[in-house]
C-alpha cells in the first residue's frame, strides 16, 4: 500500500479496504464528479425539448484493488499452497464486502485537507457490473480486481450538522 495513502483510509460498511491483505491501488475514480443530466437551453432544431432544472446524474466510480497473499498483519504463509489459500481467503473477504443484500453499501473515505486535518466523507453505492478478479498466469501471490460502484446520489457527504427551527 502506498505510504502516502496510509492516513486516508477507505471503508466499506465500516471495514477498511486499505489494509495489507488488500488495498486500493487506483482510487482516482472516487474523485469523479457527476455530470449535469439536463440543460438550461432549448436546443435549436430540436423542437419539443422542454427546459428542465439541472440536476446531478447518478455516477459510476471505478476503483482498482490489489489482493495480496499475506494476512492482515502482513505475514506471508510458508509454501505456495498456503499462500494460494491465503490469497483465496482474502479475495472472499473482499468480495463479500460488496455483496450486501437488499441494501446499498456505505463507502466512507478519510480525506486529508489543507492544514493537515482529515475529513470523513460518506456515500452510498452498489456494485454496477461484474467484479472479475484477474490473476497473472503462473503467479500465485496476488490478484487485481476492478470494481465499478454505482452511486445513485453522486455527492460525498461530510460531517453531520444540527440546527433547530421553532
Amino acid at each position, binding site marked *: 500500500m502506498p505510504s502516502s495513502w496510509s492516513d486516508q483510509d477507505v471503508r466499506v460498511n465500516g471495514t477498511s479496504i486499505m489494509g495489507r491483505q488488500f488495498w486500493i491501488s487506483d482510487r482516482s475514480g472516487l474523485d469523479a464528479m457527476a455530470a449535469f443530466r439536463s440543460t438550461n437551453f432549448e436546443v435549436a432544431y430540436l423542437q419539443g425539448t422542454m427546459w428542465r432544472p439541472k440536476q446531478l446524474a447518478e455516477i459510476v466510480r471505478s476503483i482498482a484493488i490489489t489482493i495480496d497473499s499475506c494476512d492482515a498483519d502482513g505475514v506471508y504463509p510458508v509454501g505456495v499452497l498456503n499462500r494460494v489459500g491465503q490469497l483465496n481467503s482474502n479475495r472472499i473477504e473482499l468480495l463479500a464486502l460488496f455483496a450486501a443484500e437488499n441494501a446499498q453499501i456505505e463507502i466512507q473515505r478519510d480525506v486529508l485537507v489543507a492544514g493537515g486535518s482529515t475529513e470523513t466523507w460518506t456515500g452510498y453505492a452498489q456494485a454496477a457490473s461484474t467484479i472479475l478478479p484477474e490473476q497473472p498466469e503462473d503467479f500465485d501471490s496476488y490478484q487485481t480486481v476492478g470494481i465499478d460502484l454505482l452511486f445513485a446520489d453522486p455527492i*460525498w457527504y461530510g460531517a453531520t*450538522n*444540527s*440546527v433547530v427551527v421553532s
Partner: protein
Amino acid sequence: MTLTFTGGSNYRLTNNSTDPVSWLQIDDSGTIVVDTRAGTALKGSTNVIAALSKDGGREFMRLLPGDNNMVLTGGGSVTIDFATPRG
C-alpha cells in the same frame, strides 16, 4: 437528513429559500422522526408515513447551501440533522 419534530401537532416545515418553495407536512402530533434517506417517518416504533405530504421537490425536504429561510407551523420545534456536501 433526519428531521425530529417535537412538542406540536400538524407540523408544516417550509423552506422559503428553495425555488419552488418546498414544504413537508405531517398530520400527526408528538415526537416524529423523519429520515429522508431511508424514506421513513416514525412515531416511536410506529410507521406514520401516511401522515406525510410534501411539495416543491422529489425529496422530503430540500436544503440549499448557506442560510435557509425555514418556517415551522404547528408549534413545537424541529431539529434538522444534515450532512454537508463535500465533493
